[in-house]
């Protein structure tokens, strides 16, 4: 087991990029290696020691034995855990754009908020965000029709627009509220939102399932009422209570499932 602790001592106005500092690449590194490392900042590089105090304890035979702890407000540190395949990263503070993007394994915990594109194109692993996130959590790269395809995102706060855009696998859980167009263009996978949803979940959805336990502000016309279901099992998961089930989005001949908690959404009955 190797524990790498990076404690923020200076916040940069221009974002640092941490895509090279993932367990898969640094599991053999010692303190001296981190001290020698120059971190990308804009189109230049600066010593990591300009921004973080470095502590390395223990040894690791592979990335799965690495725990990396980032102490402090990393609101200007982009690409934390980007492309990581194993190991653990804990951010005790906020995280900037693309946190957990393209992850294939391992776990990231953000004890704070995460900026846009958290979990973009995830293929595996787990991303847990204790605070809120902004647009495009668990989505595709801009312009691409293939989004997050595996893994799990757990969001304890609120989600922004277009959560899970182009979702083609994996699971997203939001304990707070969610803004417009959750699950837009999704073709597979599962999204659960326990708070309220502004409007239009599942737009142009082809398949997969979206479950909403809070109140939905506005339902898209492309969703057709199916039935009331009680204690449904969805994608192998059991839910208790009554749900209004819809199928859609008919605009693209979609066959996805949209489940609205019946108690919170009486206006649709």
């Amino acid at each position, binding site marked *: 087991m190797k524990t790498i602790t990076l404690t923020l001592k200076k916040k940069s106005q221009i974002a640092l990029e941490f895509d090279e500092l993932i367990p898969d690449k640094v599991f053999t590194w010692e303190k001296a290696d981190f001290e020698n490392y120059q971190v990308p900042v804009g189109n230049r590089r600066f010593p990591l020691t300009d921004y973080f105090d470095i502590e390395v304890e223990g040894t690791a035979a592979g990335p799965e034995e690495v725990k990396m702890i980032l102490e402090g407000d990393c609101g200007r540190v982009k690409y934390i855990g980007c492309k990581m395949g194993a190991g653990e990263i804990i951010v005790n503070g906020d995280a900037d754009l693309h946190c957990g993007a393209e992850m294939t394994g391992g776990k990231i915990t953000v004890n704070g908020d995460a900026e846009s594109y958290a979990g973009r194109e995830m293929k595996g692993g787990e991303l847990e965000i204790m605070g809120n996130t902004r647009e495009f959590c668990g989505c*595709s*790269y*801009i*312009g*691409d*029709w293939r989004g997050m395809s595996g893994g799990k995102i757990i969001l304890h706060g609120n989600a922004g627009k277009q959560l899970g855009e182009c979702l083609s696998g994996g699971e997203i859980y939001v304990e707070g509220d969610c803004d417009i167009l959750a699950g837009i263009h999704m073709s597979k996978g599962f999204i659960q939102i326990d708070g309220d949803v502004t409007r239009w979940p599942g737009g142009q959805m082809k398949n997969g399932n979206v479950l909403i336990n809070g109140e939905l502000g506005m339902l898209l016309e492309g969703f057709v009422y199916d039935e009331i279901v009680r204690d449904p099992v969805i994608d192998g998961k059991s839910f208790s209570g009554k749900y209004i089930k819809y199928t859609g989005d008919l605009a693209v001949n979609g066959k996805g499932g949209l489940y609205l908690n019946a108690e919170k959404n009486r206006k649709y009955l």
Partner: protein
Amino acid sequence: MMEYILKNGIVYDPANNIAGEKKDVMFKDGKIVENVSSDAKVLDVTDKIVMPAGIDPHAHVAGPKLVVGRIYRPEDSRKGVVSPNEVCRPESGFSIPSCPATGYRYSRMGYGTVTEAAMPPLEAKHTHEEIMAIPNIDITPLPLFGNNWFVMQYAKEGQIDELAAFISAWLKITKGYGIKIVNPCGTEAWGWGGNVHGIDDPAPYFDVTGREVIRALSQANEMLGLPHSIHVHPNDLGHPGNFPTTVNTLDCVKDIEKNSSVRNQTIHLTHAQFHSYAGTSWRDVESGAEQVADYINKNKHVTCDIGQITLDETTTMTADGPMEFDLHQLNGLKWANKDIELETGSGIVPFIYSGKAPVPSFQWGVGLELFLRIKDPWQVCLTTDHPNAGPFIRYPRIISWLMSAERRQEMMDNLEVRVWSYKRTGLGTLDREYDFNEIATITRAAAAKIYGYQDRGELTPGYNADIAVYDLNPNDIDPSKEPAAIEQAFGNAMYTIKDGQILVKDGEVVKVVPSHTLWTNVQGFEEQEKAVMEKVMPTFRRFYTVKFENYQVQDHFTPNPLITTVQASK
């Protein structure tokens, strides 16, 4: 300028009937020469393959389609990213490279000249601006005429003299090299939400057929004696059962007499693979390659390029607007569409040609079947219709497939391609393997002949010193058993020499030079042009939303022109 001698290379120069001869190639002041002095710099290329630099007769590398493609496919742009170095700017893009990347990548492969095969006259300025941004290769733009309102009207009325004068004027106005025809009358029908089906189905309103347009443009082409023949993308691209349309297209100009000494053909069929399908639907589709190849083998007025599928995720972009909409309906991916007023249309759709799917496997087989069945290598050119059937960086891989029956069989056996590749095509029965001389023909000499180039594609004294050297000893390698080595070597030239300057060494770009633009200036038709312009201008002013003064391409849009002067006989 320096004198150079490429020492002891094994030379393939089909135009001069040199097929693997060990000899020196000498150049001075940017030209091939017969002798150099003892001061000449010696480049030891002992037992390495030496060929003229490659010529791509059909690609989409410059112009507004490329820009729209880059903007609307950012997920393609982030692939193929290469950092800058002391010589080169950064590269980006896989199927649609940035302009500098386009030049670097062709140059690395040993290419020196590329055709931009679809330039809408209205967007000619934009195309020329992009050509300026592409280094290291010369570019030949072909303006589009097959759905042009003036052209359709002349064809309808049978006014060939006026059409010839119109073409003569428009090549000057757009600084284009020759006549391109795309889905004649079909893209015009698309403006009405339809398409045409075959060469005898008329366009709405104009009530003119593809046959009439193709024949009229071919007659005008021969009247002017343009260096390149008409260059045709027939109706019905990509449709099962389309090969009769293709054969009818080729046959409908058979009687038109050639009026050029610099080329052999009167019609060039482009991306033939997309036009060689039998059957009636995707359920019962079969290859029509045998029928198309048979026609070509029996008729010398035809040349073609193939448009080989490379089994990649790529971007389709073409003036065939209705076909692009069909593709979007088929694969459900995003679609961009544009009308080019009075001239043509355009569409863009991403496409995934996966060897795991039956249709792309079939198309892959059709393309290779055409290459293997067309007997005369002077009648066929290697293309992928970049980026439509795959990116041009795959040309070395296609070369490895053509030179190795074993590799083709392995791909079919290993399920790198599905069973349709051999059950629906004749590929499984064809064991022909191209030799290096045939490869040099289909990638160099044939394209130069087809375009009527008098300065490139040959290692003839007086010609441009456009030369490629590949790190392969043809006496040591067995291309049939070593396809990977063939792909590697043809993808990374030992030397690429252009106008006598070494641009690539050992697969790396070592020098960057501006591109030249090739266009055709017809002389001797000035009076006829003037008369035609007087008649055309009222219609132009009425229907175009731009002023004529803003339409024509001024000289500063082609800072490095190479002008082919043609003396029209009339």
